[in-house]
Structures are given as structure tokens and as C-alpha cells.
């Protein structure tokens, strides 16, 4: 187990360096100058030079990348007069935004809970929909419930979250007035008059449902197929032949095996959903990671983009590692070593 974890962490480091190098290179290939953007609308060359010095883009790309990596592990360094290296230790940092000059740690720390709220709440809802619907559809194939479920699946997979979001906001937010049309409130640390668990949940009802529908549809189909396949397994037939009660057959033999891939998928989807949440965040004005990433790209804000990429990469790596470990626990046939 320890060897497996070490191996995964080493791969994570390689992956991390690859992702950040690619992001860095893409930014420097694009012919736009962030220093010019912050120097004003019609700046003189000297104004742009000063702005470049202020944000550090007057140095070579390798130097900037080195500074980025150093900051990330808490080592800051400067090269003075081309000779002297001034190395010091500080708190790990993702740097400072070109566009807003804020600390990227703060930007990510503010945006990540929003995305986490959306994704985790959405995941609970999609499971609440998908588990019963998928299982019931499998138990009663070609029944009215099964066919209705498949219609839901078709709609859920076909409807884009932006379209769903606009429709939901119009119907439930504007016409019926049941929910807010847009916006977000913190669960803790209220901002202004908006905050607390009730406001938080109230503002997230529509985003959760919008976000969950696509995944719920995918999961209904997957759970239905898995359960149907497992029900035809020999060991299920044997259990029934031995006179085991139906609920026990379902719980211990069918569902336990049928839902195993769902755990894997859930882990992967939750980590991928960190990026996929961008549509829901955009349409409901949620200040999460996806929306912040889009805005940073629009503003040519490399540090913020990199900060979110780093955070998302780390999240995906950690969640996948966690899922793999869980997998080993719930399935005795799997041994990581």
C-alpha cells in the first residue's frame, strides 16, 4: 500500500509539472502582453516596461516558471545583478493576479468552496435520483417506470446545462418566484446581508438540480445496466437457489457488486466536475473556480489561470487516489500492491 501511494505521488509530481509547463507555454505563445493591459489604454513603452517589471514579465520564461515553482513550495528567490542569488523561505503561494493584483491563494480559497458546494450538493442530488430510478428500472425492465426513466435519461443527456439553467431560472426563479434567479451566499462568513446555511442552500437549489440532471441521467443508465447484468450472474442465482431472502440477495449480492463501478465513476466525475461546473456557475453567476478560470483567461491573467489549474490538478489527483484506496477497501478482490 505504501509503495503504491508513493508511486502515485511521484506520478502526481510528473503530471503537475507537465500541466503547469504546458499552461505556461501556451500563455507565452499567445501574442498578448499582460503588462500592456495593466499599463493603460495608450501607454508609452516606458509605462509598459514599468508594468512588466511590476508583474515580473520582464524576465525570461524559464525564470518566471522557476519563480512560480519556488513560490509554490515556499522558496522565494531573486537574482540580483545577474550574479547574486537571494534565497529565502516564505509561505507557499500561487502568486499574484496580473489583472486584479490579488493573492491567487485568496482567489482560489474564495472560489473553491463555491465549486465544492455545487459539485458535492449536485452529486448528492444526482445519486438521490439515479440510484432509485436506475435500480427500479433494472428490476422492472420495459415497464412504464423504466420507459419514463429512459425518457428522463434522453432529456438529461441532451439538454445543455446552460439551456436548463436559463429555463429553470425563468420558470422557478422569475415566474414562480420560488428560488433566487442568480447569486450565491456563503454557508459561513456572510458577505453583506447574504449568508448562512439557509441562504446558502436557497441560492443553490437550482444550480444543484441543473448540475445534477446530466450526471443523474448518465448514472441511471449505468446503474440500470449494471444491476441487470449482475442479476443474471451465477452467484445471484445460487443465492436465490439456497433460499436467501430477496432483500438480502439484492443488498449483498446484486447491489454490492453492481454499484462498485459507480464508486469509481463517482470519484472520477466529481473531480472532472470541478471543470464541468463552469456552465452552471456561469449561468447562475456562482463565483466558483470554473467562472473564475474563464474570467482569468479573458483577462490574460496567467497567475490566476495557473493557480486554478494547479488546484484542479491536485484535486483530481487526490480524489482519484482516495477513490482507489476506497476501492481496495470495499472490494476484497482488489489488492493495490
Amino acid at each position, binding site marked *: 500500500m505504501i509503495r503504491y501511494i508513493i508511486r502515485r505521488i511521484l506520478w502526481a509530481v510528473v503530471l503537475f509539472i507537465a500541466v503547469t509547463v504546458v499552461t505556461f507555454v501556451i500563455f507565452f505563445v499567445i*501574442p498578448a502582453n499582460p503588462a*500592456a493591459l495593466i499599463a493603460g489604454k495608450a501607454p508609452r513603452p516606458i509605462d509598459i516596461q514599468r508594468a512588466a517589471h511590476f508583474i515580473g514579465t520582464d524576465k525570461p520564461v524559464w525564470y518566471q516558471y522557476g519563480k512560480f515553482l519556488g513560490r509554490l513550495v515556499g522558496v522565494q528567490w531573486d537574482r540580483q545583478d545577474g550574479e547574486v542569488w537571494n534565497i529565502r523561505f516564505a509561505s507557499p503561494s500561487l502568486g499574484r493576479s496580473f489583472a486584479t493584483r490579488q493573492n491567487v491563494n485568496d482567489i482560489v480559497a474564495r472560489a473553491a468552496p463555491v465549486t465544492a458546494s455545487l459539485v458535492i450538493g449536485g452529486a448528492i442530488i444526482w445519486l438521490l435520483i439515479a440510484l432509485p430510478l436506475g435500480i427500479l428500472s433494472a428490476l422492472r425492465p420495459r415497464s412504464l417506470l423504466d420507459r419514463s426513466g429512459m425518457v428522463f435519461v434522453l432529456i438529461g443527456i441532451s439538454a445543455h446545462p446552460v439551456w436548463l439553467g436559463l429555463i429553470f431560472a425563468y420558470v422557478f426563479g422569475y415566474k414562480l418566484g420560488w428560488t433566487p434567479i*442568480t447569486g450565491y451566499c456563503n454557508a459561513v462568513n456572510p458577505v453583506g446581508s447574504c449568508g448562512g446555511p439557509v441562504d446558502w442552500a436557497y441560492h443553490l437549489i437550482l444550480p444543484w438540480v441543473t448540475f445534477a440532471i446530466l450526471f443523474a441521467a448518465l448514472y441511471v443508465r449505468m446503474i440500470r445496466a449494471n444491476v441487470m447484468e449482475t442479476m443474471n450472474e451465477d452467484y445471484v442465482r445460487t443465492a436465490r437457489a439456497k433460499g436467501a431472502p430477496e432483500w438480502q440477495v439484492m443488498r449483498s449480492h446484486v447491489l454490492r457488486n453492481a454499484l462498485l463501478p459507480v464508486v469509481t465513476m463517482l470519484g472520477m466525475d466529481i473531480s472532472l466536475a470541478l471543470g464541468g461546473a463552469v456552465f452552471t456557475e456561469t449561468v447562475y453567476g456562482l463565483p466558483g473556480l470554473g467562472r*473564475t478560470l474563464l474570467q482569468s483567461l479573458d483577462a490574460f491573467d496567467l497567475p490566476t489561470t495557473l493557480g486554478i489549474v494547479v488546484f484542479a490538478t491536485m484535486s483530481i489527483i487526490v480524489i482519484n487516489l482516495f477513490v482507489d484506496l476506497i476501492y481496495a477497501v470495499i472490494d476484497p478482490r482488489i489488492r493495490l500492491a
Partner: protein
Amino acid sequence: MTRKVWLGVAMLATGVTLLVAAGLAAGATGGAKSAQAAKASHAKTGLSMNIDLSSTDFDYLDPALAYADWSWQFTYLMNCKLLNYPDKNAPEGTKLQAEAADFPVVSKGGTVYTFTIKPDAGGCKFNTGEKVTAQSFADAINRDLNPAMASPAVQFITDIVGASDVAAGKGTTASGVVVNGNKLTITLTKPSADFLARIALPFFAAIPHGMPVNGKGETTFASAGPYMVSNWTQGRSAEFDRNPNYTGKRPHNVSKFTVTVNTDPDQAFLQVKSGQVDDDVGGPPPTQKQALLQAGLLNKQLFINPTASTTYVAMNTSRGIFQDVNARKAVNYAVDRHAMLSAFGVLAGTRDDQFMAPVVPGYKKANIYPTKAPSNAKAKSMYSKGGSAVVYVRNRPYQVVQGTILQYNLKQIGIDASVQAFPAATFYAKAGTKGEAFDAAVGAWGWDYPDPADFLNVFFDGNRIQDNNNQNFSYFNVASVNKQLERAASLSGDARYAAYGNLDVSIAKDYAPHANLYHATLPTYFSARMDPSCYVYQPIYARPDLGAVCFK
């Protein structure tokens, strides 16, 4: 099996019940909020106003750094300046008036400006109780110049004696900025007729003594104007309250502004429509304007106002077919300005063939080229050699459509154009690079300060062409025109405006480096509880004056 089915049904029902319960609970809360809003709608002033700022956030609120026009809409509420623009519609709103100081005494050579701060500083006082003094303005200028601020304000005050030294890190106070009691003396390196317009920029508003030099920008700080920022959580929301110490005459009808940032434009529109918020600073979505017009809401809830901006096709005079002045003139005849503007939306602007917008002082209408429909016959008579052209556009959907329209228009006069779309930052970087291989670019420009020099000298003064970051996308560089622009810049008053007005016409007529398309308008959609009779559009900031709004 039956038991198993019922178990599943129960799980499904639980999920649905949770959703419905949440919806009903929320409905009750929403209803309570609506009732509260309805109850409060009787008073005229003193109410709070909820505002959305869709698709973006304030860039900064710190006066040294705020540069976005929507940020200036709010800093206008907070700022106290030496001279300021009144809270009035055009034309009164475009005329500088004394605020904290009287109009300055200008030395004979035109390089020394002496401002005398009024005894009550025009009613300005910081919300902390600190008085506004001459030092408050000197501090602002020196803080802007400090390299640790990296302020875009520097480009507007490089002609103050000693400013460049401070900007280069040599010292902390510009030698040309001197405080003596209630007098502030500013010395320039050479006379400048637009100095007052520049010093009235929001960058140079009074700041409290000891305001930190903070390159990230202060988020909350003391203000001396009618309002102050009491809270700004970046990426989320901001709150602006009345400054309790302000005793000036500027309107401050609203007791509090709560601004939610980064909302979706479509959802923000629904919020305004339903009365959940009173205004989306981003304006209504273009697709909704027609419906609002048909509902008879123009000048009741929907307001359309001109801006000091221009959208144009710049033709690169330094290479290719547009070195030929007749080709440039032909494009001016061939371009379909009506279609170009239609792509931007309903009531989105005013078609025009001139560079300066009508609100720019000195503008005079000349009707040089057709604005209603293209005149291909005339265009072909001017230029029939054909050729090819690379056209740069930005990549928003309507801008890509405009690129396609231009491509079609050019085809009508035998020019084969290939259109390349880029994100805005890339577009401006590429088109602004001297020697870049393009022939035309569809760009836009809005003024920083109300002076024709901020249009014509920016576009057409060839002496300002540099290696990168040009706004002169046509790379127009004619010695005689450069001289005339420099001469116009040295004039003041009516003579200045007349000179620029003439240049605006003559450059378009004789050289046609741009095919100007239209001057955009700014649509504003207020909620039904706002009283349209109080609506004031501040023409300099090209935004509704939020301090002046009131309620039905």
C-alpha cells in the same frame, strides 16, 4: 420483490420530497422579500438600491488603479476632486466646475497652475472626519506616480515637473507638485490645454493622508465625496453607503448601494424585470431591447444614451492595398454601416462616418460618406484594382459577424478579404504591433477624458507610433497632419475645439485612414420602482448618475 420495489419507490419519493420542500421553503422566503420591497416603494429617496454588475467585477475601487468605466461610475460617487463634472445631463454635465478648489490661476506661460482649496472644500470631508486639504490632492498625485502602485494614471501626468523621476523610483514627491497652506501648485514641463481635463480624472481625487502605497489597491478606504465604500468582497459584492460627513451639493438620494458582481446578464435581466434588483450595470442583453421597446418602456425603464466612443475599420496605410488613399476612400463608400450597427443590436449606436463622437467638443457633422447604405458604384469608380486583405476582428459573436459583413462589402469592390478573429487582448496586441501583417482591423475606442485630443491624437498622430501597443492601427503618419494635430493640441477653448473639429473632417475626407462605422450607445434598464424623472446620464462617464436616482 414487492417489498424491494416499494423500498426503491420510497427512496425516489424521499429525493423528490426534499427538492419540493426546499422549493416551497424558498418560495416563502422569496415572497417575504417581495412584500418587503413593495412596502418600501412609497418613499422618493433614502432607500437602498440593489445592483447587479453582470459578467465582471470592479477592476479596482482604489482611485489610483480603478480604470474600468463601470468602476468610474462608482468612484464618481465617492470621489472629491479639485474640479469635477456636475451631476447633470449633457451639455451641462460635460462642463468642468469647481469642486474642492476654485478654478486655478494659470501663469502667463501656461505651465503653472495654482489651485486654492475652498474653506469648506466644497462640502467634501472624509468619512473618517479628516478634512480635505491641498495635501490630499498632492498625496494622490504622488501616490499615483509611485512605482510600487504601478498606476495607469502615470501616462496622464508625465508632463508634471519631476513626475518621471518619481515614476522611475527616484524620490517620492514630484517637484512640480507643491503645497503651500490651502494652495496647490502644479508646474508642467510645457503648456498643455487639456491639463484641467486630465487632472479631473478619477485618479487624482483627494485621498486621506497616509493612504498606504499598495500595489494591490485598497479595497475599502476613506472617501470625501457623497458616498464611501463600506465593503467590497472581490468576486462577490460591494456595498456603498452615504458619507456622513459630506455636506456638498452633489445628489446622494440613495442611502445604500449593494452591488452583486459577476452575475449572468440574462439572469440579471430577469432580476431587474422582477424587481429583485434595480439595475444591471452591464445593461440589458441585446436580445431583450426590442421587447422592452415594444413594451413601451423607453425613457420609463429603458434609457438609451450616447457614449463618447467610436467603432471603426482601421486600414493599414503602411502596407498592402490600403497604402492607396483611393482604396481607403472606396472602403468608406462600400462599407455597410447600417448592417455593421445592426450586428451590434437594436438601438446600439448612431451611424457615422467621422472619428469623433458627437458628444466630443468640437464635433461638426460633415456627411462625407454614405451612412445609410453602401454606394458600391461610387466605390468602384474610386478604386477598381482589386486585391486581397487580411482583416483582424475581435472574437465576440457580433464582432465576428461584423468581420463577415466587411468581407462581403470588400468583395463588392473586388477585394478578397480573409477575416481572422482573436480574443480582445490578442487583437489589440497584434493590431498594435508595428509591422504586423494585416490590412484592416475593426476596433473601438472610448475616451479617457473629455477632449478631442483623446480621439484624434491617439488615432492619427504619427509621431506617437511605437513598436508595440499602438492605437493608431492604420499606422497613419503624415507630417503635415502631425503638425496640425500638435498645433491643435496647443490651443485652448473654442479655438482648440474648432481646430479639432476641422481636422476630424479633413482627415476623413482627404486621407480616410479609417472607415468609421458608428458611435455606440449605452442602454440602461431600471426596475419598475425607479422614478424615471430623476434619471441623469452623466455624459463624461457615459453612465447613469447613481447618486441622482430616486424612487417612485
